[in-house]
Structures are given as C-alpha cells and as structure tokens.
C-alpha cells in the first residue's frame, strides 16, 4: 500500500449543491437544501442531524436510488447515475433477505459478481468469523437476534468489497449493550480494510466515536452546517478509553451543542411538515 498517503488526500465522493424535492400528493416536500460535502478515500465520515432533516435522502442519492432535483453527486469523478457495487449500502431497515440463510445473504454480492464458489466460501467464512456469526451460517434471519441480523447486514455489504460503504443508522434498532460491541467491531473492521465510509446516526456519541470527521446537518431542508475533525481513528478506539479521553469528550460536547441548536428552535411550519 505505498500510495495510501496519496489516496487519502484524494476525494472519493464530492457532493455539490445537492437539493432534493419530493413530489407528494400534498405538494412538494423539500428534503435537502444545497448540501456540499466531500469525502476523501479511506475516510470515515459520520452525519448527525435532527430526524427528518434529509439524511436518508442524501444517502440514497449517494447510493444512486434518488436523482438529485438540483446539484451533482460525483464518485471517483464520475456522476452517480444509479446503484452500483462500488457503493455498498447498509439500510436503516437492514434489507437482508428473509429467504436466504446467513451464509447465502453474506455471499450474495459475490454470487452476483460470479466469484467462483471456493473463493466465495473463503470470503464468507472469514466475515462470519470476523462478525461472530460462526455457528449460525445455516440460520434464516427470522431465527436471529436483532444484533445478529445487524451483523449479517454489515457483513453482506462488506463481502461484496465495495470501495465506499454507506450506512443509514445501522445500529439504531439494537439494544444499548450490543450497540457498543457493534461499534467497536466496526472500528476494528474499518481499520483493517481502509474503506471509505459514510455513516448516518442520530447519536452524537456514536458519531464522534466512529469518525474521522463529523458532519452536522440543519433541520429540514437540511444543509451541512458544520464539520468537526476527530483525530486519532487510525490508532483504534474503544469505549472505555473514549469515555475518559477529555479531548474526545470536548468534541462530543461541541457536536451536541450544534445538534441541540437545531432541535431547540424548530419553526412551527417546519415541525408540522416533518412526518418521518
């Protein structure tokens, strides 16, 4: 990896002036208002913002499921025109398939890419080990706990080996203890693979813990109102030392303040229109 340094200064994703308006039966709903951001290759960027501010909309546009009403979205310098295997997605709803076993869910991307069976099984086996799913390979999702389903969703996206991974509040639905474990696992997984990650959350702690950089969004229609660098991800992170690291806690405080400003002064018109 001699060109890691050069790569890390390169922009993987560039969003400029992304504005999106949903046409609904009750008229247009503007989800985002001129979002500008760029993500460097290998960077872990988290996004926090009040519920309904357009986070998922932005992620779906990066994934290629939504065409911007205005503005542009570039990945590796090319306009995003649709979903593709270079950009993996872990959905808020997980979206792992109930009719596939753990093994076949995780191997699905490789199956689609026509990776030979032996190589596929090797990758799947490694990810099953890494995510602590050993022994559950032949189970179906409905037989798993929420935390395990979560791991399957992450492993499935990881196995396809995309350059960019987009994650939409992936840990929101699991219990607090499991969440801490999953977050530490994610830090380790990312450290090992050097992926570019865009991660949405509504937890400020989580945002700071995972990130190289935290983005804060305004309330709907969302814009990026601040970007805060968080140093030292490369050295690895765990919750125990994170909680007593005063530099880290200062960043948490700072982000918390930025987020609170958006929650506090919600205009009546805006709050009435937020439905999701």
């Amino acid at each position: 990896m001699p060109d890691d340094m050069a790569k890390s200064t390169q922009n993987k994703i560039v969003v400029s002036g992304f504005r999106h308006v949903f046409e609904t039966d009750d008229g247009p709903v503007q989800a985002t208002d001129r979002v500008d951001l760029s993500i460097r290759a290998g960077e872990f960027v988290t996004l926090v913002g009040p519920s309904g501010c357009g986070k998922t909309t932005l992620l779906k546009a990066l994934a290629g499921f939504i065409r911007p009403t205005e503005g542009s979205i570039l990945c590796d310098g090319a306009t995003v025109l649709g979903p593709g295997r270079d950009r993996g997605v872990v959905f808020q709803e997980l979206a792992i398939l109930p009719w596939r076993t753990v093994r076949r869910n995780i191997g699905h991307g490789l199956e689609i890419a026509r990776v030979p069976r032996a190589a596929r099984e090797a990758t799947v086996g490694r990810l099953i080990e890494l995510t602590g799913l050993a022994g559950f390979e032949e189970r179906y999702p409905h037989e798993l706990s929420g935390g395990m389903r979560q791991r399957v969703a992450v492993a499935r996206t990881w196995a396809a080996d995309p350059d960019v991974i987009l994650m939409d509040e992936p840990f929101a639905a699991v219990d607090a203890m499991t969440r801490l474990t999953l977050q530490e696992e994610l830090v380790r997984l990312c450290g090992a693979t050097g992926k570019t990650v865009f991660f949405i959350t509504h937890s400020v702690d989580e945002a700071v813990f995972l990130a190289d950089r935290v983005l804060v969004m305004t309330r709907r229609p969302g814009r990026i109102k601040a970007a805060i660098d968080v140093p030292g991800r490369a050295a690895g992170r765990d919750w125990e030392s994170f909680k007593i690291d005063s530099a880290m806690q200062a960043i948490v405080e700072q982000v918390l303040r930025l987020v609170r400003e958006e929650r506090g002064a919600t205009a009546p018109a805006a709050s009435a229109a937020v439905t999701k």
Partner: protein
Amino acid sequence: MSNAAMEGSPARRSAARRWTAPLVWRLLPLTPFTLILAAWVAYWAIAQPSAETLPAVQDVAGAMWDLAVKGELAVHVLASLLRLLLGVALGVTTGVIGGFIVGLNRPIAEFLNPLIVFFNAISGIVWLPLVIGWLGIGTALAVFLIWNTVFFIVFQNTVLGVQLVPKVYEQGVEALGGGRWETIRSVILPGASPYILTGLRSGLGFGWRALIAAELVGATTGLGQMIFGATEYHRSDIIIGGCLIIGLIAIAMDRWLLLPIEQRTVRRWGLAFDARSEE
C-alpha cells in the same frame, strides 16, 4: 415479580404445546368429521329417512366399495385428477407469469386492468355452452374451465404479492450489483411466494368446483359425471360417496402437496401468514 411471571408463562405454554403437539394436534382436526358422522348415524337411526333423501353410512360405503371393485371408481378418479392437475398447472403457470408481468409494470397493469375485471366477472359456468361448441366435451373443456378459474385467483394474488415486496429488498440487491433479472429472481419471486401459495391453495379449491361443474355436463367420465349419472337413478349413496371422495382427495392434496411446499419455503423463512403467533 409480575413481569417475570408474564415472561415465564408463554414459554411454558409453548413448551407444553410442543410436547402434546404430535398427539392432540394431529387428531384434533378429525373431531368435526367425527361429530358430523355421529350426527348422520344418529339421525338415520332415529328418523329413518328414505334412502333418496339421505342414505345410510353403510350404504354409501357399500356403493363406493362396489364401484371400486368394478374398477369404475378408479377410472372416474383418474379422469378427474388428470383434468384437475392439467387445469391447475396451466392456471398457476399463466397466473404467476401474468401476475409478474402486470405486478412489475404499472403502465401494463393500468392498460390491462379493465380487460381483467371484464373477464373475471364472467368467468365460470357461463362459458360452458360456448366452450362445448368450441372444444367438444371431455378433458379439454374441463381443463379450460379450471384454467379460467385458477388463473384469475393465482394472477390476482401474484400481482398483489409482487407489489407488496418491500422496495428496500430490491435496493439492497441493486447495491450489491444485481440487475433487474437478479432482483426478480432473488427478491420478487421468493418475496411474493406467500401470496402465490395462498393463490395456489384457493386456486386448487375453486379448481375442484370448476372441474365438477364441467364434468356434470361436459364429460363422459370423472367424479362429476359419476355424481350426475347417479342423480338419474336416484342413487343418493353414490352422490354422497362422490362428494366424500372429492373432499378426501382435496385434504390429501393440501397435506401432501401444499403443506410440504410451505414448510420448505414460507414457513422456513418465517413468512407464513400464521407465523406471527409463533413469534
């Protein structure tokens, strides 16, 4: 305290149910049949109706035995089964394919909707006089009438099933690099299968009805013809016996054809419509 008790009781109840399942649950569905049989025997013993209005249980059994020994019963059953399976197979195949085409394409759905409503409304026995002219009497006629019934049921269930598959499953596969064909194969088809199987189940039931209706007038063999022929000689024992055989074959098909399919698919995946109570 009360919390712990509440958590404990469902677990204990389900454990108890698992233990008694092989015995009670397998025999329980026989109770209503036993009751009907008992009522029949009792009514016959008390009221002694004429054989034309209601035959005795032993007369029905005897009549069926006679037909079986003569080999006639097998001929009727096989003729009916052949027609039923042909008609149902055709109806299911066309219904699923049509349901996919319409379920996946909103413009096509809107284009075809009036046509489907139109023909669905006049499906059934109305076709009989016309179709006898086209196809003559016999297997083709029955197969057409069964197809005409099964198709609409399977078709409408498939359309619904296809449209109800959560969009995010498709997006998940697209983000893994899957194209249209891959999403249809690995998302829509299994995702719609609970509805397709429901369609198949009701399709089979209504297929029997269409079959017997077709055979009453449009065939020389088959269970419908056996029953219809018996009415001319006032043989109520054969009529009732024929109905019993139809019902028993229907139950057998449900148990040994549909249930195994369900157990390997929607039940295995936790998608069976009655799976909620198990959670």
